[in-house]
């Protein structure tokens, strides 16, 4: 026990001596996630959620009917995400080649005649592969806009066809046709009024920002734990380790001391992180502050134990660095840190079932005005089980290594 305490103190001192690296360990991921948070909140601000992009429109038919179709395609919500550029085919292709437009839409010759006679003539859309997100989004909205134009045009055609069947004069038919263009056009543009929308603010979260704040705070605990082990491995150089081993200090002592030192140093930082989040962002806490402290400290301990297991399994720093990073990326993608789990594929639920990150996120969502039917301990239990499991496995593996080293 004496060896353990002295070694813990020594590791703490060594980590604090390397204060520059310790501050970098804490600050760089925090600043990085803060930047990512700002980016996400910025993209979430407008309902369009994408940078407004230019689209080239080539009207080869150039009739009043095509002007009406273009208006249908570019008005309303589409105007918020795209900037239409009216040009000819050659110039449009040049713009696409120079990466200046996200897509080209071409209305072919004879388009007006065909659509008025109920004949389908597809619009030709070329998407810019160098802008995959914008071109794909444009494709979806164009398909939806094409449906609306089809709806409006079918109404216009019906009115005209029935008047023609009853031999209404050309003058009256033309007048009714013009009227139909306006009434059916307005009808499809007014599609938003079909819905009576209610936002259920009492459920789950108040807004998306809260989701990402908690999600990134949990990710920060994970990254600190990962980086902490990289720093801790520096505290004992090979000659120091060799000397320690000759004086009866085992691998178990060394790793336990590093785990304790990291926990002691990172816990106050984690508490400060959550404290400032509560204070600055006025996050509502469901239970008591004691419960929240237990949750945060338990989560930090579980992450440290998980990375301890990874550290002892991959003794080479390079191997630990690569595996740890891939593990963080995989967890961030599949556990709901980047995209809420509801939008992830079904097979990802197999990973989520065993993922510590999912459990930590559930606990944090409960702690901050989340599910209000269960107790905090229910969410803390799987986290502590993961921590204990990782700890036991890591210690067992270290003891095996120790025995091999003695032989």
């Amino acid at each position: 026990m004496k060896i353990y305490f002295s070694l813990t103190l020594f590791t703490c001192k060594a980590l604090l001596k390397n204060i520059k690296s310790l501050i970098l360990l804490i600050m760089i991921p925090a600043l990085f996630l803060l930047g990512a948070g700002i980016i996400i909140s910025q993209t979430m601000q407008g309902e369009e959620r994408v940078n407004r992009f230019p689209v080239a429109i080539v009207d080869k038919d150039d009739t009043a009917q095509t002007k009406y179709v273009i208006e249908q395609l570019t008005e309303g919500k589409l105007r918020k995400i795209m900037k239409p550029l009216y040009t000819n085919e050659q110039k449009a292709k040049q713009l696409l080649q120079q990466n200046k437009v996200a897509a080209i839409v071409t209305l072919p010759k004879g388009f007006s005649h065909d659509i008025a006679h109920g004949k389908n003539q597809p619009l030709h859309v070329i998407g810019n592969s160098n802008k995959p997100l914008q071109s794909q989004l444009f494709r979806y909205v164009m398909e939806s806009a094409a449906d609306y134009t089809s709806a409006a045009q079918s109404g216009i055609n019906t009115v005209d066809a029935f008047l023609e069947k009853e031999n209404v004069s050309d003058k009256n038919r033309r007048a009714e046709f013009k009227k139909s263009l306006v009434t059916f056009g307005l009808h499809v543009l007014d599609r938003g009024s079909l819905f009576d929308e209610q936002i259920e603010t009492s459920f789950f979260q108040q807004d998306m920002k809260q989701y990402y704040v908690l999600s990134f705070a949990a990710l920060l605990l994970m990254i600190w734990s990962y980086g902490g082990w990289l720093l801790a491995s520096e505290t004992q150089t090979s000659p120091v380790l060799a000397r320690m081993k000759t004086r009866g200090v085992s691998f178990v002592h060394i790793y336990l001391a590093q785990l304790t030192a990291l926990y002691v140093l990172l816990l106050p930082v984690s508490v400060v992180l959550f404290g400032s989040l509560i204070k600055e962002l006025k996050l509502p806490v469901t239970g008591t502050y004691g419960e929240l402290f237990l949750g945060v400290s338990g989560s930090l301990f579980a992450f440290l134990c998980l990375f301890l297991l990874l550290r002892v399994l991959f003794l080479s720093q390079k191997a630990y660095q690569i595996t740890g990073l891939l593990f963080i990326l995989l967890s961030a993608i599949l556990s709901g840190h980047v995209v809420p789990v509801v939008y992830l594929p079904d097979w990802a639920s197999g990973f989520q079932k065993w993922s510590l990150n999912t459990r930590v996120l559930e606990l944090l969502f409960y702690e901050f005005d989340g599910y209000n039917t269960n107790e905090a301990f229910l969410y803390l239990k799987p986290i502590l089980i993961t921590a204990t499991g990782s700890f036991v496995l890591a210690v067992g593996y270290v003891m095996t290594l120790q025995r091999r080293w003695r032989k």
Partner: protein
Amino acid sequence: MISEKIKQLLKRPMLVIMIFFLPLIGTIISSSFLAKVQSDSKIPVALVDQDHSNMSKQVMDRLQKTTEIQFLSLNEEQARKELAKNKIDSIFMFPNGFQQEVEEGNYQGVIDLLTLPSSVATEAVREVVASEVTRLTTNVKAANEVRFLYKVYNIHAGPDLWKEAYRYTDNQWKPKPLMTIDYEAQGTKHTKQGNVQMTGYVPLWGFFTLLLCCITSDWMIKERRHLFKRMKTMQKGLYGYIRSVSAAYAVLYVLQALISFALFKWLYGVESYGVLLYMCIYVIVCVAFSTWLASESQRVGSYYMISVVMVTGLSIIGGSFFPVGELSATIERISQWLPQHLLLYQHALPLTFIWKEIAVSIACICLCAFKIVWNVRSIK
């Protein structure tokens, strides 16, 4: 001296495997993984039919054929419970009297929509539902309009006029709607609606290569204490040594870029050799950047940690994982100043157009080289 160093490096099998194969394996696995996540991802939305009319059934049937959205038919209680647990994105409810309201031309607020503040896909789903309902409302509107015009022009209307006009309007959607889109992605014809992968393999390769460059540049820290002092007394000097080691790594990484390009061309069919040029410029920037970062660090552990965070951060903003620049103009402006931007052009652009990216890369190499020399000067 460079050739000697290359020979020395090639004698280390682990290093050779890491440099030549790790970025490739990482790219192929993560690219197919991200493609699978993207293609299998679905938006779960609940549909609640309280009207049980022909129209509501028709809309529900058509919506359930949509492939990108998972429409679940639930009752109101179940749907509200699922929404409360955040298991679905939103609820679309067809209330009692839906058909009657539509037939009478009262379309305003005819569908109840329940969402959460966290529902991110509601806008897109709303458009899909609206397009199906608008089809019905237009049929009704056209039939009403025809009936009205028959009265205006004193035309005798048969008892089935309204139904006839309704059917006539609806039949114009068969076999195809009046207007459709023929989509082409710069040379590749897509007749069926399919997913386009948002993350290219070349940007992902860029992330793994930069990460590996940082890992292999740790020689700068490890050799500093013992070898650098000796090198100062040699004929070529310390600068010559650092130059030759960095150049040897750069040559190996350029070779890696060539192999990767050949494999990408074989596996995915990269279209232009311009991409290879960008990959080669990029690896040289990576070697310069990682060597500089290592020259700034005193300890291997902290160097690894800082490099991991920096590489991940730069790769995210640079668009290696997802085209984030397309989401925000600010990020787009920042990413243009990062070397990762070079790799975003899956379809190579003319050099005259990407001069900025190339100039940034050259400036980055020069700056890193200058700072390495500066840092090495302070080694005693």
